[in-house]
């Protein structure tokens, strides 16, 4: 039985660790990437079912990366993680799956991921 694969993209190591521990505990396969370039490699290598994407990163930021990513991949759901709540408008433009405001409490993130996956009919493969 292969589990749902999630790629966590964030420039901060501690955040990557927190996310991967929490999401692994929630039953997902987790890989991490530290920037947009790294994310591209990991997507190719790992072929994730869902990506959590930090917005504020050095180099290419999350929104820019999302735009680029969508040029090749129209389907893989992406959940944007932001420190702000005013990216609403940008989400409308880029039509991302969802966004969550970053919090130390990851319950909201996990709930959103679950919701998105269910909507897409992605579940643990039999």
């Amino acid at each position: 039985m292969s589990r749902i694969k999630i790629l966590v993209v964030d420039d901060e190591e501690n955040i990557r660790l927190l996310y991967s521990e929490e999401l692994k505990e929630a039953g997902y396969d987790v890989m991490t990437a530290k920037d947009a370039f790294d994310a591209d490699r990991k997507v190719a290598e790992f072929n994730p079912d869902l990506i959590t994407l930090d917005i504020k990163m050095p180099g290419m930021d999350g929104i820019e990366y999302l735009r680029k990513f969508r040029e090749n991949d129209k389907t893989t759901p992406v959940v944007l993680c932001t420190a702000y709540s005013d990216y609403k408008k940008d989400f409308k433009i880029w039509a991302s799956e969802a966004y969550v405001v970053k919090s130390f409490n990851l319950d909201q993130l996990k709930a959103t991921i679950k919701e998105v996956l269910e909507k897409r009919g992605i579940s643990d493969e039999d």
Partner: protein
Amino acid sequence: MKVKHHGEEFIEQLSGISLSRLYLQDMLDRLTTSVATVMESNVCALLLLDDSRQTLLLMSSHGLDKRADNTVRIKVEQGVSGRVVREKRTIAVNDVRTDPDYHLVPETGEEWFLSMLAAPIMDGEECVGVIYIQNTDQTEYPDSEIEKLSSLAKSVAGSIRVAWRLEQTRRKAEVLSELNDFARFCSSTNDIDQITSTIINYASKLIGSKIEAIWLTSDDDSLSGSHYPESVGDIEWMRPIREGIVAHSFRNKEPVRIDDINSETRFEGLDRVAKCSVLCHPMVFHESVIGVICVGDRKARDGEYCYPFSGEEDNTLAAIAQMSAEAIVRAGIHKQLAENLNEHRRNVKELTILFQLSLAMQRTISLDDLLAMILSCVTVGEGLGFNRAILFLHDEGTGVIKGKLGLGPSSGVEAENIWMAASEGRANNRADLAGWLVKSNFAEITKSRFHQTAISYETSIHSQESLAKVLRNKKPLNIKGNGESSLSDSGLTQLLQNDQYAIVPLIVRDTALGAILVDNFVTRKEITDSDLEILTRFAAPAAWKIQNVKLLEKLASVNTELLNMERQMARVEKFLALGEIHAELAHELKNPLTSIGGFARRLEKKLDGGSDEHYYSSIIVNEVERLESLLTNTLEVTKEGSDSTLQSIDLNSVVEQTVDLYWRAMSEMGIRISISLAADLPPINADYSRIKQVIINLLINAMEALSKSEEGTYRMVEIRTESVHDNRSAVRFSVSDNGGGIPPSHIKDIFNPYFTTKPTGTGLGLSLSKKIVLLLNGVMEIDNRPGVGVTFSVTLPAS
């Protein structure tokens, strides 16, 4: 022999006389004395014919009244001497009382003498004079005596002729020298009065006249403006009357010479009583007659008798008239130039004042200061120099004209003090009138008594007061006073204690804003038309400036509102600036906080429920939770306000929905909730979620205040909405509690972000709410009653 002896002696004396270079008078005096001695007679007299050959002038006498010398004239058709001239022979009269030709000349005192022997003085074939002797007794002159006098007369003729010519030449030279002096004087002055008085002096001196008058042409080519010694003023014939001597000379451009006005018939206005001779000459310059000089009464040496003027004297007066004409014309041209120059100077002064005033006016924007400056300019010496001035303004709304400012002394003593103080202030730099004017102090001026008098005056624009008329007619008025003028109305005259003043209207675009009144209360100097003209020209720019400053003052009140708004905006700016810092800070804090909190939560989950480690972890989790909410709120404050979407909102429904959220929580705290919603509330243009946030913040604030009051006490929250109509339509909602209010020492800090007195509060609630309200152009107010409670109310503009 006695006769011969005397004859030899005489010849000796005569040759001495002839050879000496004596003046004519001395020579003749010696001659008559010698002849009297030689002839052994009481009297010897010598007469010479004048230029006209019609009159004999007594040149010298021995034994007669010497005052008659050079004075007495006898016509050739008169007396024994006349007959000698006519018949060119020696004539003896034994007893003058029996001689029909005898003509008594009383001036000489000859009435004592009865016999007379007179011989002609011949120059070749021509008789030039007569020499005669007189004796007190009746004497029949023997032939030898007759022969003797005849030969004496012949022998002296040559010497007399030479001396006479010499004398005439000397006199001519004297006259020429005097005329030269006169000419020099004429070119040395341009004062017309000085010139005319000098003409009169020289005429009197050179011609020997007793009375003189000069008449000059005026602009209309008639004679006017006379110049003569006052004593002549009422002599009719010297005046330019019709058909009179002066008018004739002027009209016909010709001189008039009259030996005796008693026998003159050509002219009118002659005084037939006084014996008088007259010379009158036109003063001609380039063919045109510019005046007439008239002299009269050729005076005798002692001033008692009058004799005709000689041809020489006539010529001298002609020369004087000619030179006078040139001098007077030149003086006239100079006077004209001087007047032009004065007018030019006045114009320059006027322009300078106007320029200085406009400079000064540019430096002031207060109406009071401007008015003070205008009146200072009107009264200061370097300015227009009036003693006092009042500025009246006309209120178009009420139609009332009121004294606004008065500048000047109310008495002479006060004048001195004021002007001395004023001149001290500007002694050093008189040119900088503008600088001094700028210092014109409204407050200082209003302390004066005259100002108090000035502002007590008011009248209607429709009244009959001269001030009202000036404003209605928009024309200046110069009231000359003299006590009875009908224009001089009692109101202002009473006010000023003076019936001589001028009023000039202040006009802008055909509207009279007011007027300036001036008078010369102290100096009593007449206000001339020229003064009034300058004041009128001065009033025009002053009126414009008053208008401008009035507009500016109106603008200033609008500006105050704008300034208030700007201050409000500045507060918003401050919040926004603060917000920028918060945003950066909050963002940097967010990630580490997420890590700390995240792992603390993981620890908390993994550790045993009762362990110290679990408890410590939970503390971290709680603290991070608080910090995170602080950060979230900060980011809300700073990032969202300006981006919020405005829409038309019904405030009542937001209030209702929001209160619903907290209804249960408040009820559980035992709080009684009272809601009062206005029915006619207009919609507002706002961001729904922001308004909701403000209401939530105020509700939470009230709940927290009430949580501090003791359990079981009466707790109350009242929520109201209402519409407000003051300047613009607005809506207001308020949240009141009875939680004891805010301590006065805290009140100034309550909108300060991060100020809080609550153990768990972040302090951002009220500050955030206030920012949102400001961004919506609203106002948040607090009605704080320490010990009772507090009401927060928010007023927002209706859409």
